Every structure is written in C-alpha cells, then in structure tokens.
C-alpha cells in the first residue's frame, strides 16, 4: 500500500485581500486500502484531496506520498496517484470514449496495438465496451463518471483519489459507480457526501473547519459527523 504522510500541514489562500485558512495543523499517516473523508461543504476536504496528487502544495508543512515530497516531486507522484474529479465533464478531454481513455496512455509510449488492447480491456471492465466510438459528451452522467474512472485506471495507479465521485449522480448511476469503486484493486482515498459509499472502508476521517476532528472506523466516524450537525 502507498503510505501518505501529512506533517504539520496547513493551507491558506488570499482572495481580494482576505486570507482564508483552509486546512490547519494536520498530522497523519494513511496506509489503509480504503480511506474515506467526510465533512461539510467548505470544510477543506477537496483541498486535502488535491494535496495527495500535488495539485495543491501546502503553504506550511509537508505531504509525502511513498516518501516523495509533493512540493518537489509532483510529476513522479502523479504517475502513481490517479485523480477523479466531481464533474467528469471537466476531466474528459477527447471527443470519443475510446480516445479519451487512450489519451491517458500517451505518456506511456506504447505501440498502437498495445494501446488499443489496454483501452478495450479497460472499457470492458467499466461496462463501456459498446460505447468506444460514442461521443463522450453524449454519455449519461453515470457513464461519464465511469469513463472518468476508466481513463484514470487504465494507467494502473497505485492510489486513486476520488473527489465526490457520486455527488452528481442519481441512485442507479451512483450504485454503478459505487460497485466499480468497490471492485478496484488499487488503494482508494474517497472524499464524499455519500455515506453509503463508506460502508466497507477501513478508515474514515471527519474534516471540520480545516481540521481532522475525528478519525475512526466508518460507523464511528459517520456517527460523529452526524452529531456535529445535529
């Protein structure tokens, strides 16, 4: 498993002359197979998630992924850590489904045949085999999220970070995406409001006003989170 370490991590940003503290004094080590992160909107969850993929570098403290410092080794980290965004439309780059998955492999310098084989196998694994030449923007919300997952997983990352993967989905699509996440071999860190997604997770963090205020099993952490907003 990939080991993620946060040492004295705080993060703030300034807009229109006002400084907003997003994360405060986070110290933790994550090496479980399934880690969930819950908290209210604006609590700092998404910033926390972006730090795992070096999309955000902390203003103080250090984040290390398998010993690699996100401030200095961002590219090496992104080769190991895949990231799936809330809105798959922001993540889809190419016009068709197969082309978008193949886009993820461009840095792998594979031959045409191998690329096509890996794309076909990945699309089949995510139930998109019949949509290979389909325009990506015409897929349903659930299919788009599955495509976003497929486009990340085709690169076989060690760790997958999901930022609210089911937030925009209806119940059937949410279930499909949840099933796909459950079946992943890779280590997963999921930021979510979908508490059902966390049922079989190993560890859940509760973020409140920029701090990790609770860190426990899913049942305990969810109970604590609900108490916060009683």
């Amino acid at each position, binding site marked *: 498993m990939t080991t993620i370490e946060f040492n004295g991590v705080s993060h703030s940003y300034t807009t229109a002359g006002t400084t907003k503290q997003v994360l405060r004094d986070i110290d933790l080590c994550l090496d479980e197979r399934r880690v969930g992160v819950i908290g209210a909107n604006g609590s700092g969850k998404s910033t926390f998630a972006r730090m795992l*993929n070096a*999309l955000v570098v902390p203003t103080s403290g250090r984040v290390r992924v398998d010993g690699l410092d996100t401030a200095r080794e961002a*590219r090496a980290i*992104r*080769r190991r850590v*895949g*990231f799936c*965004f809330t*809105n798959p*439309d*922001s*993540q*889809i*780059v*190419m*016009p*068709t489904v197969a*082309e978008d998955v*193949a*886009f*993820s492999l*461009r*840095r792998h310098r594979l031959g045409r045949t191998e690329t096509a084989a890996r794309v076909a196998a990945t699309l089949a694994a995510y139930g998109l085999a019949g949509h290979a*030449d389909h*325009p990506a*923007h*015409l897929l349903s919300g659930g299919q788009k999220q599955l495509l976003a997952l497929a*486009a*990340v997983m085709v*690169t076989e990352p060690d760790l997958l970070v999901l930022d609210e993967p089911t937030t925009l989905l209806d119940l059937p699509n949410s279930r499909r995406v949840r099933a796909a996440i459950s079946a992943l071999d890779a280590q997963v860190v999921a930021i979510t409001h979908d508490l059902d997604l966390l049922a079989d997770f190993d560890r859940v963090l509760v973020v409140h006003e920029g701090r990790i205020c609770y860190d426990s099993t899913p049942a305990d952490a969810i109970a604590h989170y609900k108490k916060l907003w009683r």
Partner: protein
Amino acid sequence: MTAPLGLYVPGDSVLHRLPPGAKLLGLIAAAVVSHWISTPARVGAAVALVVLLFAAARIPARVAFDQVRGLLLLVVVLGAFQWIVAGPSKAVVVVGVLAVLIALASLVTLTTRTTDLLETVVRTCGPLRRTGVDPERIGLMLALGIRSVSVVAGLAGEIREAQLARGVRPGVRTFAVPLLVRSLRHADALGEALVARGVDD
C-alpha cells in the same frame, strides 16, 4: 439531437481509409482552389462535388445537415449583406464558397478519428521541436478546440434553458456574460484535470 462539429462517424469508406495527412492536404488544396470559384455555376459544381463526397463517405443526411445548420444565421446575414453591397451573383459566390469549405472541413473530422488527426499534426510539426515548440502541445490544443465545441454548445443550452425557466428576456448581455463566466470556470477545471492526468510530463 443534433450532431455537433467534430463528431467522428465510424465507417470503412474510401474517405475513412484515406490517411489524415492526405485529407488535410486536400482541404488546404480546396481552400486554394476556392479562389477559382467565381461564378454561381462553379459554386453549383462545387456543392455537387461536396454532396458526392458526403455520399461516398456514407455520412447520414441528418449528420451532414447538422454540420451546416449552425451556420445558417451567418449565411443569411452574410448573404444579405453581399446581396446589397455587391449584388446577387457575388452573394451566391461568397456564401457558397464559405459553406463548401466548412462542409469539407467537417467531412475531414467526420471521417477521421481525432487521435489519428492529432498524430498527423504532431508528426507534421515534429521539425518545430528544434525551435523550442512542443508538437504535442499543438496536438493537444487542437483536441481541446474540437472538444470545446460540444462543451460550449452544452453550456449555452443550459443557460438558455435556465433563462427560459426564470422568464429572463433573451439578450446579448444576459446570455454572453454567464456563458463567458461558465466557459472560464470550465477552462480552469479542465486545466486542473489536465495536470492531474499528467499532461505536463
């Protein structure tokens, strides 16, 4: 549902099998030759040739029509202006040449996978690497341009629906401002996603 520009239509016609480089060269040649189309009769011949090419590529009529439908307003405005300024013959020539070239450009994207098009562009721009230009970036810009057509069209549709639902009178400012803001937000999110997908590697 309309078929947007850049939509690849799978097939095995002669045009589908033609190398992307040849199709792009053909398009450039057509643009050069278009200067020779100076009478309505020649416009008619060019239109007939384009129709034949669409038929040869076995592009469904609805998809072919969708490629030029979005340009109808432009064609009408430009045609009317030319009619007043230069007369009916010139209006037919200007509008006809524009429509023919746009239809041919659409035919290239309809019969070529974007990946193949990008590979060709990247290969063609390869020598520019010595001058510090990254051909991969040029290819990516092209792909994002093609993809953006459907994204911006989708955003425009959502804004129109939201305005209708709230009873807002359509207007340039009430439409263009939210479209610009949402397009910029999308561009921000896309940029972040590209970094996450390792585009800067």
